[in-house]
């Protein structure tokens, strides 16, 4: 009872990377708490699926396998999770901050009246005191132990907030793809598989949304795995300005990323956004072109090996974490980088 649960997302019968990353994190949280790690998988044709998650240290794998559960739709998956949680009373539930996790998580939290924190960048266990209202309506200090700290940048990135929900269970959090690291604990880790009677958990009236047509393409880029990233921000100035970045990236065999400001300006696809609400990256080299460095952006790239910042504002926050600062405009510096790379790589 009161385990740590991870809702594992599936594409067909393949478990998403973000879910395995969360199993890795969930295992550590469960160890700190001295409880079990359990995974929930809801889909179609899931024979043997437990083999994908158990090596991450999952003690119990709950499988809901039936026609109509893939592709994901909101109501059946919500019922499976909510009704399972009513029985199992988990203390923590982690989900990917993906389209599916952000569709499912809020419904589950609403049905169970539990708190949900979106897009966490860190999860920790800790004790604290907090003023709460007692039955007489007075504020009294109350001590809480072994609570989940849900840590995320907030409010335009100017602050880091730690969110807790001490009086409600489960404590729910979503985390983006790539924020946590995926690490196999033991290839032969032995857990238990529980195949649930789907009809007992999901009423037939839940199957109300039909997926008529579905296209999933492999990602157009590999930002997550890139060794070198050339990223552009508001200082790039225009969609045309990004062409220079693509040219530099091509020379360096790099990928092109962007800050939210550049994405919001419509200069580049949103799937290239790096940061808390985009992709988290860990390249060897990160070339930040005209990026001021809001904390949400930095949350997504601070683990880069070498950071080069090109900015005409010497006080840009990103310069604080840069290894090389080039004082100049993107327009001026990027063509020179291309020129001298070409010259010296011959």
């Amino acid at each position, binding site marked *: 009872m009161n385990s740590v649960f991870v809702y594992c997302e599936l594409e067909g019968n393949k478990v998403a990377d973000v879910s395995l990353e969360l199993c890795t994190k969930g295992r550590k949280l469960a160890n700190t708490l001295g409880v079990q790690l359990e995974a929930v998988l809801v889909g179609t044709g899931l024979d043997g699926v437990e083999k994908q998650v158990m090596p991450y240290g999952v003690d119990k794998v709950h499988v809901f396998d039936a026609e109509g559960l893939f592709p994901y739709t909101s109501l059946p998956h919500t019922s499976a999770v909510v009704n399972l949680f009513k029985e199992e009373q988990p203390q923590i539930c982690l989900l990917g901050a993906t389209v599916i996790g952000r569709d499912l*998580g*809020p419904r589950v939290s609403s049905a169970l*009246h539990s*708190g949900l*924190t979106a897009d966490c960048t860190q999860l920790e266990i800790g004790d604290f005191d907090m003023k709460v209202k007692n039955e007489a309506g007075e504020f009294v200090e109350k001590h809480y132990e072994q609570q989940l700290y849900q840590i995320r940048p907030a409010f335009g990135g100017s602050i880091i907030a730690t969110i807790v929900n001490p009086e409600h269970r489960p404590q729910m959090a979503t985390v983006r793809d790539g924020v946590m690291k995926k690490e196999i604990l033991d290839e032969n880790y032995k857990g238990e598989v529980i195949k649930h009677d789907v009809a007992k958990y999901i009423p037939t009236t839940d199957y109300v949304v039909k997926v008529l047509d579905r296209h999933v393409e492999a990602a157009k880029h590999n930002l997550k795995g890139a060794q070198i990233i050339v990223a552009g921000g508001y200082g790039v100035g225009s969609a045309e300005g990004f062409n220079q970045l693509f040219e530099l990236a091509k020379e360096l065999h790099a990928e092109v990323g962007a800050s939210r400001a550049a994405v919001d300006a419509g200069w580049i696809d949103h799937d290239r956004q790096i940061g808390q609400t985009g992709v988290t990256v860990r390249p060897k080299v990160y070339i930040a072109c005209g990026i001021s460095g809001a904390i949400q952006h930095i949350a997504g790239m601070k683990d880069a090996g070498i950071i080069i910042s090109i900015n005409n504002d010497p006080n840009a926050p990103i310069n604080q*974490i840069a*290894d090389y600062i080039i004082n100049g405009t993107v327009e*001026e*510096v990027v063509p*020179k980088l291309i020129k001298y790379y070409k010259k010296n790589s011959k």
Partner: protein
Amino acid sequence: MGLKIIVLAKQVPDTRNVGPDAMTPEGTVNRAALPAVFNPEDLNALEQALRLKDANPGSTITMLTMGLPKAAEVLKEGLYRGADEGVLITDRALGGADTLATSYTLAQAIKKVGDYDIILCGRQAIDGDTAQVGPQVAEKLGLTQITYTEEIISIDKEAKKIVAKRHIDGGVETVEGPLPIVVTVNGSAAPCRTRNVKLVWKNKNAEFPAWGAADIEADPMQIGKAGSPTNVKAVKSIVFKAKENKTLTSSDADIEGLIVELMESNTIG
């Protein structure tokens, strides 16, 4: 047949332009330092509503917003663009609400409106980026949802069916769902049309009913701070530890020097 459309909209501080005075010394939001705007994706939702109204004569659009009295500005903006009416949900007792308490409050207000075929809102608001309120409102009303919607393709009031295209990770899908339903609209959907001059003249002095917690028969334990499971335990400003770094100019010599240094250390190939 005309549709009864509800649009949920939020007035938000414009976090896209956060300055150094955005936070008070106590770590709370200094709303006075930030311009208040119509949440961008709620405008995308309004456009989908207006398109439904254009295609289905006799439809009406009711906007709901929860916030301080000033939030009525988004209702007026909605009328300028073609919405029919608006209701402000405002009450001191609603302050400090997290997404769950907010969703409960909005769901109670929607129940008071009563008759609806579709509820539209933005996927998320820029002051929190949580994307939770749409699905939570749906859950509270016992409805299903279509999130991350790019476009409503068709709607049939008699057959009680809607078909919409939505964004999914790595692609798109087309789904058919029942009515009534909650639809959250993505920022990549069609942008909202601009104000209509005639509607601006007609509505510039418009006033809106204001509903408090009692008007929507809200349970005091489910609204405001009391109804919010999440608590902010701590807030801290970010201070980066300055790294040792090299500062270069944009001169040819400096740039070539950097390239050579990176190539010699095999940092770049």
